[in-house]
């Protein structure tokens, strides 16, 4: 278990849904004091309809200031459930904690003369079901952080990825999950480019790792897997490949391995181009995008060069048409979803071909600030520019994060420099394709489900 304990639950508040009715406070007061005196509630809704409502409640902080300032050790962090426990026997009623807390999460209860704070009602907070507007929810936080933190990071420290690289994040999570009984193929691209296979005699990975050719990842991996199967050893065959190798020059071996239903987990890290070798266009590069081989210029014959002139190849849909054991799209902005799919893909790869397509923003090649990585990844989903779904032959295709009320695609496009030059016509082409692609996948989801 990590320093801050296991998976923690917390009470989340959506101010947009709150109308200040106070039912939560009544419920809390009833549960904790046996009265309906809202002033004695551990949860306090403050503010007004005009200025908006805010929540005053213990956040069960990971780095709790109340605990730090308490001179009597009456407040302690419970590493098992994440709750800040208050011990009445030790408390000297100095109230320093009420000053230390920035969230007004601990306050004097006039009815007892001592401080009082939320203890989450032992995991069943009375306030949450009392809210008539679902403004309060009881959610699990840091599950992935806490769980994954205990698994070994199978990449060596100091990989030479770009600052803020999404691929490194994805690789470290993936390998932690897949574990040491794995053979990892990393074809030429960002994954080995940052040192996964090592330089001059050193290795970047703590499990067997190799450079296939850009063209033969799936075939080489199939050979490895088949031999272990032959000798009765359970070894996971994992590829972490770029979109260029998978969708372009390596597509034949990918398709062949999928058709033969080789027992492989093939993960494509789609950063929409040949980013490691200088940000050139791939067949997964979206329409209109600047790349180093689809540059912007005034063009020959007064026809301006305005980025890629074709739409992206939809590789995951092509893989669905191989009827793989499992196919899914994922995004690092939705880690729970990604982990769920990774688990399913690992299991599927023990039966046959599993394909995971992860949309992976590239701070260097897409031209956005390094701290905007998750925001760009999230906007891609919120605009339906990319769709998160999964497929297996039994249940067909279905959306895992459906976005029924998408943002306009410009919210995504304006987040990065590679689309800076787009004309209104180009933007409208992209918006049209988003609608068309969504309709197509929806049709497929409907058809596959039948």
């Amino acid at each position, binding site marked *: 278990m990590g320093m801050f304990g296991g998976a923690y639950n917390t009470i989340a508040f959506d101010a947009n849904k709150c109308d200040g009715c106070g039912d939560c406070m009544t419920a809390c007061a009833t549960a904790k004091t046996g009265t309906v005196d809202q002033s004695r509630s551990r949860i306090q809704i403050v503010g007004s309809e005009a200025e908006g409502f805010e929540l005053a409640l213990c956040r069960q902080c990971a780095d709790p200031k109340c605990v730090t300032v308490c001179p009597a050790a009456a407040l302690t962090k419970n590493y098992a459930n994440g709750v800040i426990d208050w011990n009445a026997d030790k408390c000297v009623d100095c109230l320093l904690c009420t000053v230390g807390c920035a969230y007004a999460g601990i306050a004097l209860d006039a009815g007892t003369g001592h401080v009082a704070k939320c203890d989450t009602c032992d995991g069943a907070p009375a306030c949450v079901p009392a809210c008539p507007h679902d403004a309060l929810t009881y959610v699990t936080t840091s599950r992935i952080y806490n769980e994954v933190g205990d698994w070994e990071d199978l990449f060596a420290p100091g990989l030479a990825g770009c600052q803020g690289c999404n691929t490194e994040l994805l690789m470290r999570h993936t390998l932690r999950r897949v574990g*040491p*009984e*794995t*053979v990892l193929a990393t074809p030429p691209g960002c994954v*080995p480019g940052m040192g996964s*296979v*090592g*330089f*001059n*005699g*050193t*290795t*970047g*990975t*703590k*499990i*067997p*790792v*190799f*450079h*296939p*050719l850009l*063209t*033969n990842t*799936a*075939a*080489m*991996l*199939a*050979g*490895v*897997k*088949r*031999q*272990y199967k*032959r*000798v009765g050893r359970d*070894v996971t065959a994992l590829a972490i490949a770029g979109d260029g190798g998978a969708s372009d020059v390596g597509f*034949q*071996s990918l*398709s*062949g*391995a999928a*058709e*033969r239903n080789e027992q492989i987990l093939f993960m494509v890290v789609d950063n929409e181009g040949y980013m490691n070798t200088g940000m050139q266009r791939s067949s997964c590069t979206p329409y209109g995008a600047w790349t180093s081989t689809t540059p912007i210029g005034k063009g020959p014959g007064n026809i301006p060069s305005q980025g890629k002139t074709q739409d992206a190849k939809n590789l995951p849909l092509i893989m669905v048409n191989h009827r793989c054991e499992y196919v899914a799209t994922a995004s690092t902005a939705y880690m729970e979803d990604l982990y769920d799919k990774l688990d399913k893909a690992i299991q599927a790869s023990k039966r046959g071909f599993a394909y995971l397509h992860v949309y992976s923003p590239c701070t260097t090649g897409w031209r956005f600030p390094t701290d905007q990585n998750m925001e760009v990844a999230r906007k891609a989903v919120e605009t339906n520019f990319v769709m998160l779904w999964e497929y297996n032959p039994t249940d067909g295709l279905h959306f895992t994060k459906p976005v029924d009320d998408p943002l306009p695609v410009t919210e995504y496009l304006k987040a990065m420099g590679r689309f800076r030059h787009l004309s209104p016509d180009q933007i409208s082409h992209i918006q049209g394709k988003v609608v068309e692609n969504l309709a197509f996948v929806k049709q497929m989801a409907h058809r596959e489900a039948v």
Partner: protein
Amino acid sequence: MTTATLETPIQAKPAKQKVMLVEGNEAAALGVALARPDMVAVYPITPQSSLVEHVAKLIADGKMDADIVDAEGEHSVLSVLQGGALAGARTYTATCGPGLAFMFEPYFRTSGMRLPIVMSIVTRDGITPQSVWGGHQDAMTVREVGWVQVYCETVQEVLDTTIMAFKIAEHHDVMLPVNICLDGNYLSYGTSRVELPNQEDVDAFMGAKDVNWHVALDPLRPMAVDPLTGGSGGKGPSTFVRYRKGQCKGMQNSLRVIEEIHEEWAQRFGRRFAPLVEEYRLDGADYAIMTLGSMTGAAKDAIDEARDAGRKVGLIKIKTFSPFPIDALLKSFAKIQALGVVDRSVGFRWNCGPMYQETMGVLYRLGRHIPSMSFIGGLAGADITVGHFHRVIEATEKLLSNPAPIEPVWLNEKD
């Protein structure tokens, strides 16, 4: 003939060998089965197809216990085997012509990774012009890529050499992939009597499988396979250079190992093939012709007739083409005054046959001038007949008293 001696002679007597009538492709398949590979990957291409069909049938009939991968092309065929070998599998495939060309990217890499993969090349001429017939152009085109390449003369030699190839490849002093080249059409479809070695005797000959002791993809001994090397910074090119040097050493070691293994084969199975270079009626000859592969049969008949007619001509046949058997050739060349070299493919850069081009380098090392010339025949499945070889003999004999022509002689130009 060059021979090697074993320190301990093989005492075992081979069991009675089954006699069969098979084509060369089936003989190769039978040899593969006897060598017990774990994995074969297959893709059809003329004139190789019946070879992998025979392998597939042997597996389907339960006569061979190997994982067969019907890959989607030759590129993946070799790639699957690379993965298999890195996981410890003994591996085999076969190809030719355009299939070999398509396979080139992983082909180049196989020798670099020192993987002892065995692959038959059922030799086919290069396209274009379009052709599906025999010729050495495919194998010759990849002669500089670090695979050991041996050429067979007969169907029996195909069978026996296919088995020996695995042992050569896996020898710790070699650890290189091996091509057994058998002539498309002439050997692939040529049906001959063969003696089939007994499985137990082959098992005793092969010994324990030892494929990935030096490089592996195995969670029990994790390592990075093929990390980046070279460049002008850091450790610089040292790793790469030492690696390449090791490959070249492995190639040179294979000359000795091929001799030893052929000698062991002769002792165990009673069939002796010249491992590197065969001399035929060379003693007492003033001049010689040089051959490769199945054409040698007709050439030997022509030599016999020429000798009966009083011509002092002998024959030198190369079996091991890569690495080029320089020392063995120098011993043969020391006996003659002129040489005619017959190729079944062309060398575009030198306007001669590739074997002739290689031979010129050896002649330079001889230290005295021997006139020589190049003959090109048997392209696109053409037959090189005894009659053709008489032309070769006559033209070569003229080198004893006349200047050597620079241009090659094209044997089938007017056939």
